[in-house]
């Protein structure tokens, strides 16, 4: 078997492999984006919105860290 015979065969074998790698990369990116949107601090209009846990963290910690300042707490329905 000469190298001329092997060349085209390898090329044909590599193409699907490339496609599979590209597909895997796209899937990984999509998964990362999904994970990011499920995270507590996903951006909305460029500004972070943190989902509070049942113990109201991290609001409580931030409130106490800001002791010494005047603080406003607004509880509002977004709709």
């Amino acid at each position, binding site marked *: 078997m000469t190298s001329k015979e092997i060349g085209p065969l390898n090329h044909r074998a590599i193409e699907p492999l490339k496609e599979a790698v590209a597909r895997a990369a796209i899937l990984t990116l999509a998964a990362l984006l999904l994970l990011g949107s499920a995270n507590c601090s996903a951006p909305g*209009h460029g*500004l972070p*919105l943190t989902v509070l846990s049942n113990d109201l963290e991290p609001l*409580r910690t931030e*409130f106490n860290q800001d002791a*010494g300042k005047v*603080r*406003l*707490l607004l509880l509002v*329905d977004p709709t």
Partner: protein
Amino acid sequence: MLAQIPDPNLRAYVVWLPVLPSGAWESAARRAGGRIPDARATRYFDRDAHLGHLYAPILHLPEGLPAWDVYLVFAPPVRWEDKPPAPTYWMHQLGRRAPPELRLDGDQIARVVSELLTTAARESHKTAQIRAPLDAACLTPPIGPLMLPVATGSRPA
């Protein structure tokens, strides 16, 4: 109000919580958060309206009504211990379900916040004045008998 008061000693926490039966609260909160671009404000989403239920008895709201559309002001020394702290002052948009004298008035709440900021600045200035001589005293090395020049040798005749 944040735009009216540019003081860096003011912080705001905006907590969006689901009360009205509209659904899609979180996405609405994200959109609404974009309308408060102030760097002194932090945005939260309380998906179970937990904070609203905790504040209802603190604000003496009618039973079953969560605290929402309420604007709470806290003086500088207030800390959040086991339970959320009672506000120094507050206003609402709850109509007849809360005290009419506390119905939201932007000018009034801004006035209260400004007064608290002025008082805090005055207190901080006073503390600095009291501390300054103390700090200076700390920087000056103590003078004791050991630090006095020791006379050595015999006096010249």
